[in-house]
């Protein structure tokens, strides 16, 4: 491949034929290009080219993160028998490529390497080396450089994964461009060597070191610094050879944060973390050159950022110098320190710039005056323009043909070139002459000069204009305003300016920091959805704990030192164990998922910015200024660095909470429920039907994609967006939960891996990704399926991708990606394709995905790309994706903007001024029509056929209406029939209770049985309901132009579906429903009948019960208070005193009555009279009364009566009011008039309807009667008078009075009182009517007998 590039550059090969070969899709990458005696495979050439370019430009790129390239891997199990000559061959053949591999490795590592995965480096080193060998064995001339030692990258979990974005030691292992190969390499460099005459020094020690054994130190360096020694083998070796150009001296120690002053914190890396394999010994003179790993694109370390002194020293100093070693050592320390700092703190990936931390003062200083060090690029100074044109064309073809693993990565690289700040100053000329002196075409410094870089970048941008033009407006503006673009291609600038106007992607403007809860839905959340009361009440608490935890997380998770597990772990685990004991996992899983969706679904796409605020936006009301403040805070606290276009998968914002919650809960039952639910929801979402716009797609130009379309189309687009975002979120969590058990912090060894693969391939994966994918491709719905599958697969653990099912899926995705050419007109529209290409490209760069996936056919050979079999256009053909959605799904596209903005602001990587994307919550999906059941297959088939040729909305409408009408029919039955039945039952119950000797429980059973029989009527009624309501709704919802036949058919289908739904539910549930409703009604009635005091057991209680129930049974009329129409009298103005006020006054009065009291406190008759009037008014007005206050008020009137009638509460006479010291009417002193009037008033009040439930039995308690008997005759007379009046007024029946008397006499009263009783009774004979007297006499005689008998 090197040879091919060489021959192209030398114009020995026809560039066009090479381009054609590249473009030849059909033959794929299997076909070799054979010309000029070279045979090259595409999959080898492309990575070679990419690496070549990165390597070329490595010195010029000063900013931003690396743009990693994947390396192709050779069969890893390669024979180890290959000799070192092979290795050499491979290396030498690799030319620039070798370094390329190394640098790629490095860059990739830079993005992803988790610190902890480092240790097994040596193994990987070995294996990759062997891989290289086999390669070289195959073809000595092919480039060996792309090795993957790393392939099945371990997925670091949690913070480790995040740390992938942080600096790792390896990131600072600057591998200088190897354009100046050292003569020392001669022995190994074969072909290249001959030409290589660069004045490089210092690598001597590595000259032989590339082999597994020789490269001890460098190997360690690698493994220490990055993911592994995966660069091992050829690539690795090459690095050590090629690397170490003069600029090696410009170690990026400036870039390290916390550059320690010499002598401070001398941490020995080896001592502190031996597993990193950092070998401190090699620090020596040659050290600088031994650090081989560089990423071309990632070498952001330039002179600009280096103190001039150092730069000078280092620059030409290819010779070994001791200062270097010092710096080296320092740098080591710093790196280690930085790394540790990162491991400990900073949970936010974005908070750290991976490769260019800019804290150092030096750096800042240099930032201020970049121009002084960076020459302004000038078109006139471009050298090698012919070759650059050729390279650009080759490169662009690779991009256009999707031959690169990630086109945005390449675009990012190009942007980096555009904004590069080549460091050279005084030695320009020298450099140039050096370059010119190189005779090997591949080693010329094509991209060393900033002029060349910019020239190349602009060429590529021009070529890839269509792609660029789909970037967001702000990026386009920054590009158009970039003076370099203007300088090198005014035409490009103009086109960019024009493109800006068409670009619509904007950042979501606002965010709600307001979290919304999952609403309580009686249908799913009330008691009937739980197995037991206990489960129900447990879950009530669970819900509250869950939100409590969530709120606490919100408040504290950003505070330093806060730890999720420490703060919330015990509560969460406690909750889980409660859940388990109550068996509530399914409920909690539902709550959890709903809350997840509510908070994390992602920005809603609002196509028109001026949309009227809907309910959701309204939800942000008030929270807005707080939200803004928070956003500002976030920006100040963590300025966004450029993280590059391939961030590892992450759980931003609230997703972090849900992830941490699951990890902490660590509850297998919950996880299983979540998995089940997620799978079901995903598959459902994947099936969602989206209506295509009426116009045929083919005719629509691409420009129209951006148009708003009509309302329906717009609606469908939004629906699609909503579905897609939801599916992606759910898929990510499904992936997270599914692969959680397999996540390891360390990469497993090969043996363990093999065993794991063997083991895991036996069990069924949670989701049949292959089936989903192939089904989706067949039906052309990949635009929906692929983005969420990518999210799912991004969660794979490091063994996952090696399992056949995932390997196949990944291979299929790869084939799909290669086919998804943006430039070609296909049936898919541009933005749809762009989204696919973007997410797939991202996936291929994820740490867990084997690095070699792209350039080998290990994955693709198991995959097959099936062409869609149906002719109907699927989702893929509908322009569903807009820029907003693209950017929402691929937030890393915003990196271009940051990069360009950083360039403008003069800073390099960490620039502020970038708007952060924050995710507002969005509305729930509409409920999808439930699948309808069918009983008659033919009918169903006919129906399906009917719908087939109708617009999909018809089916949706019918299904929807049927669902709703059916459900309403059920509710209607509940509200009408069932409540009528229950009402009827209550009447039967009450009637039954009135009959003597009734047995409530028997009564209950028989009534319930009757009601259930009557309930079967519901089916017929529901059918009638459905038949009435369905047509109405359908007629309203279908468009006017619907033909009568279609309308009638739709109506009938709706009727049938609705009836079926309603009846099937009713027939299964109506009896249970009636039973339940009846039971609660029965309980209520019985409770009401049983009065406020309803004790249940015990001896004393027994007495109470008896007392109470007897009283009730004998006075059923009065006790039906609860049944009375509870309403105010007509024209009630509700102006009566409030019950609480009246109660307070009664309380005052009673407290005087029960004492202790002073004489002054005694009330007058008129005071009591007024109060009693007000009590009566209050009792009459129902507005503020409750059963409780009413009962208490009545109770207090009876108690007052007792105290009055017994003269325990003396009443001041009316006349007394005038004189100041009123006449005290003591007991027995002739107080009849005032007291009698009051008693009369009371009796009259109790007679009223509203007082029917007054507890008059209290008048007959021993306490009262005793008090009366103890007093004088007057009191006794008053008492009898009161009873008499009550009987006369019908408030008490004579039987009741007799029953009370009986009870009294049964209770043993003191004998003296009995005598008194008899005496008095006789004395009051005259006033009582004869009948009464008679009865009293009898009763008293009886009582006397009992008393006598008892004594």
């Amino acid at each position, binding site marked *: 491949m090197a040879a091919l590039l060489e021959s192209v550059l030398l114009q020995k090969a026809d560039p066009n034929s090479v381009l054609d070969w590249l473009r030849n899709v059909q033959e794929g990458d299997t076909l070799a290009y054979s010309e000029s005696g070279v045979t090259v495979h595409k999959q080898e050439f492309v990575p070679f080219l990419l690496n070549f370019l990165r390597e070329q430009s490595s010195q010029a790129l000063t900013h931003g993160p690396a743009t990693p390239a994947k390396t192709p891997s050779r069969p890893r199990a390669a024979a180890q028998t290959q000799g070192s000559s092979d290795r050499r061959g491979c290396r030498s053949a690799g030319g620039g490529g070798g370094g390329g591999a190394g640098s790629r490795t490095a860059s990739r590592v830079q993005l992803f390497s988790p610190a902890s995965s480092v240790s097994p480096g040596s193994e990987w080193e070995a294996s990759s080396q062997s891989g290289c060998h086999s390669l070289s064995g195959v073809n000595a001339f092919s480039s060996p450089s792309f090795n993957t030692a790393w392939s099945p990258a371990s997925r670091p979990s949690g913070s480790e994964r995040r740390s992938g974005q942080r600096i790792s030691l390896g990131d600072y292992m600057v591998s200088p461009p190897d354009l100046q190969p050292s003569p020392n390499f001669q022995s190994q460099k074969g072909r290249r060597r001959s030409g290589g005459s660069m004045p490089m020094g210092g690598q001597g020690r590595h000259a032989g070191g590339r082999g597994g054994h020789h490269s001890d130190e460098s190997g360690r360096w690698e493994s220490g610094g990055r993911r592994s020694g995966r660069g091992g083998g050829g690539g690795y070796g090459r690095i050590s050879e090629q690397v170490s150009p003069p600029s090696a001296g410009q170690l990026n120690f400036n870039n390290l944060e916390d550059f320690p002053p010499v002598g401070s914190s001398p941490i020995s890396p080896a001592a502190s973390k031996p597993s990193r394999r950092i070998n401190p010994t090699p620090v020596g003179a040659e050290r600088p050159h031994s650090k081989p790993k560089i990423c071309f694109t990632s070498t952001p370390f330039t002179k600009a950022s280096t103190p001039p002194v150092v730069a000078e020293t280092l620059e030409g100093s290819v010779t070994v110098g001791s200062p270097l070693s010092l710096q080296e050592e320092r740098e080591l320390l710093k790196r280690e320190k930085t790394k540790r700092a990162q491991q400990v703190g900073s949970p936010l990936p974005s908070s750290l710039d991976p490769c260019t931390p800019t804290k150092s003062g030096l750096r800042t200083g240099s930032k201020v005056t970049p121009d002084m060090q960076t020459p302004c690029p000038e078109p006139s100074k471009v050298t090698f323009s012919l070759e650059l044109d050729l390279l650009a064309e080759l490169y662009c073809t690779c991009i256009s043909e999707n031959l690169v693993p990630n086109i945005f990565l390449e675009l990012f690289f190009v942007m980096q070139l555009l904004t590069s700040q080549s460091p050279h100053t005084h030695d320009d000329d020298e450099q140039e002459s050096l370059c010119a002196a190189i005779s090997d075409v591949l080693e010329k410094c094509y991209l060393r000069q900033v002029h060349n870089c910019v020239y190349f970048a602009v060429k590529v941008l021009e070529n890839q204009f269509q792609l660029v033009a789909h970037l967001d407006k702000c990026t386009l503006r920054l590009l158009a305003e970039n003076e370099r673009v203007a300088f090198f291609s005014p035409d490009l600038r103009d086109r960019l300016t024009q493109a800006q106007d068409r670009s619509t992607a904007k950042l979501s403007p606002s965010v709600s920091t307001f979290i919304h809860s999952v609403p309580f839905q009686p249908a799913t959340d009330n008691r009937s959805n739980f197995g037991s009361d206990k489960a129900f009440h447990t879950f009530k608490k669970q819900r509250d704990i869950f939100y409590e935890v969530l709120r606490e997380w919100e408040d504290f998770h950003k505070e330093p030192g806060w730890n999720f597990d420490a703060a919330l772990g015990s509560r969460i685990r406690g909750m889980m164990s409660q859940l388990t004991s109550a068996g509530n996992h399914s409920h909690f899983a539902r709550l959890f998922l709903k809350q997840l969706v509510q908070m994390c679904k992602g920005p809603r796409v609002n196509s028109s910015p001026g949309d009227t605020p809907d309910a959701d936006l309204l939800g942000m009301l008030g929270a807005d200024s707080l939200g803004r403040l928070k956003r500002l805070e976030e920006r100040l606290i963590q300025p966004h660095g450029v993280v590059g276009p391939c961030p590892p998968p992450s759980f931003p914002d609230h997703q972090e909470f849900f992830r941490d919650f699951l990890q902490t809960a660590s509850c297998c039952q919950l996880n299983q429920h979540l998995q089940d639910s997620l799978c079901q929801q995903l598959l459902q979402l994947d099936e969602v039907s989206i209506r295509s716009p009426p116009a045929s797609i083919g005719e629509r130009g691409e420009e129209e994609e951006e148009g708003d379309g009509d309302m329906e189309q717009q609606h469908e687009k939004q629906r699609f967006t909503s579905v897609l975002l939801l599916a992606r979120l759910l898929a990510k969590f499904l992936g997270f939960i599914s692969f959680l058990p397999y996540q390891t912090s360390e990469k497993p060894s090969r043996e363990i891996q093999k065993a794991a693969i063997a083991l895991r391939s036996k069990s069924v994966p949670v989701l049949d990704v292959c089936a989903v994918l192939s089904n989706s491709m067949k039906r052309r719905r990949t635009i929906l399926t692929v983005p969420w599958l990518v999210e799912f697969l991004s969660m794979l653990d490091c063994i996952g991708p090696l399992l056949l099912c995932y390997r196949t899926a990944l291979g299929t995705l790869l084939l799909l990606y290669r086919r998804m050419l943006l430039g070609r007109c296909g049936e898919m529209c541009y933005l749809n394709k762009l989204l696919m290409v973007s997410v797939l490209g991202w996936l291929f760069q994820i740490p867990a995905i084997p690095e070699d996936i792209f350039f080998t056919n290990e994955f693709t050979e198991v995959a097959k790309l099936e062409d869609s079999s149906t002719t109907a256009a699927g989702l893929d053909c509908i322009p569903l994706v807009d820029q907003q959605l693209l950017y929402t799904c691929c937030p890393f596209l915003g990196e271009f903007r940051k990069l360009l903005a950083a360039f403008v602001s003069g800073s390099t990587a960490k620039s502020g001024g970038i708007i952060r994307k924050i995710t507002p919550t969005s509305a729930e999906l509409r409920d999808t029509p439930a699948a309808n059941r069918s009983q008659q297959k033919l009918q169903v088939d006919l129906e399906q056929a009917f719908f087939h040729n109708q617009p999909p909305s018809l089916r949706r409408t019918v299904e929807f209406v049927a669902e709703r009408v059916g459900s309403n029919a059920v509710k209607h039955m509940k509200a009408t029939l069932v409540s009528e039945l229950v009402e009827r039952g209550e009447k039967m119950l009450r009637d039954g209770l009135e009959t003597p000797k009734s047995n409530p429980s028997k009564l209950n059973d028989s009534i319930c049985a009757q009601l259930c029989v009557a309930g079967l009527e519901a089916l017929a009624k529901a059918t009638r309901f459905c038949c009435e309501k369905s047509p109405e709704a359908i007629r309203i919802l279908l468009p006017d132009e619907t033909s009568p036949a279609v309308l009638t058919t739709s109506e009938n289908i709706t009727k049938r579906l609705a009836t079926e739904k309603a009846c099937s539910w009713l027939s299964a549930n109506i009896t249970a429903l009636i039973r339940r409703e009846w039971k609660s009604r029965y309980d209520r009635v019985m409770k009401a009948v049983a009065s406020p005091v309803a004790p249940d057991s015990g001896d004393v209680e027994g007495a109470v019960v008896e007392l109470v129930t007897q009283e009730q049974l004998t006075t059923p009329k009065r006790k039906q208070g609860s049944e009375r129409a509870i309403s105010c009298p007509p024209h009630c103005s509700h102006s009566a005193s409030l019950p609480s006020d009246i109660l307070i006054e009664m309380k005052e009065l009673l407290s005087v009555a029960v004492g202790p009291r002073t004489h002054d406190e005694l009330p007058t008759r008129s005071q009591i009279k007024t109060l009693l009037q007000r009590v009566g008014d209050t009792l009459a007005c129902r507005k*503020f009364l409750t059963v409780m206050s009413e009962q208490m008020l009545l109770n207090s009137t009876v108690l007052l009566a007792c105290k009055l009638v017994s003269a325990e509460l003396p009443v001041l006479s009316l006349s007394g009011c005038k004189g100041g010291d009123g006449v005290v009417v003591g007991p027995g002193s002739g107080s009849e008039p005032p007291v009698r009037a009051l008693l009369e008033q009371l009796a009259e009040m109790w007679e009223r309807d509203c007082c029917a439930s007054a507890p008059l039995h209290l008048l007959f308690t021993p*306490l009262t009667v005793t008090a009366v008997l103890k007093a004088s005759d007057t009191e006794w007379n008053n008492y009898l008078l009161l009873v008499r009046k009550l009987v006369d007024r019908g408030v008490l029946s004579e039987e009741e009075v007799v029953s009370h008397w009986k009870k009294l006499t049964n209770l043993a009263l003191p004998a003296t009182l009995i005598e008194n009783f008899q005496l008095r009774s006789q004395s009051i004979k005259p006033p009582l009517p004869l009948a009464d007297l008679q009865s009293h006499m009898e009763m008293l005689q009886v009582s006397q007998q009992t008393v006598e008998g008892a004594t």
Partner: protein
Amino acid sequence: HSQSTLLSIFSLEYQKRTKRTISRHHAPDAIESYYQRYLSEAKAHPAAPVLLELANEVDLSPALMARIILDRFLQGPEGEMPSKTVLSSMLKEPSLIPDQILANNVYQCTINDCCYGPLVDCIKHAIGQEHEVLLCDKLKERNLSFLDENQLRAMGYDKTPDIILEVPIAVEGHIVHWIESKASFGDDHSHRTYLNEQFWSYWNRFGPGLVIYWYGFIGELDCQRDRGILLKDCFPTDIVTLCHAAQQERLPHEPE
């Protein structure tokens, strides 16, 4: 309502104090000594308010003293405890107490107590109820349709605020889905308890809402507005409702 506010604050403070000291009175030896004192004094002075004086003397709420003594009185010979139902029904209706002297004493205690006892409980309940009714009146006045606690309970809600609005409103720019009426003063202690036991639970189910402390509250407590819990001491005046196009159209015709 400054007087009611003071009363409410007094009541809260009294309850707080009682909570702190009640355990002292519930110690078995304390109970026994109260009971014996009561017995001997009641025997000596059957007509005197013995129990009430005892309660005042030991600085305990009379109603609680009555409960303690009655509880002790009802204990069986082997010390078995009477059921709570019987106990409270007798407190509610002392005429059920077999011992008339005790019955009179209990009457005196429960009726004279200012903070505890069935009568006070009933008054508090009535006050709360009245404010709920007033709240409903205000909502009806404004044509805001809502579900009340009873309706919600019938629907099976596990936690029920006084009011859930069928269509949410905005009060002073904050969304309100539910309203809880509190006929008491909102001090930090009771507010914290309410937050944990009620308000957050409502939020967790129904979203943001409004709490009205009719007798006022400590201003600093109103700090969860942005989180969805708004405090007021009266029915809000700044209410924004959803305006549907249909309503807006209708408005101009109303004068006719």
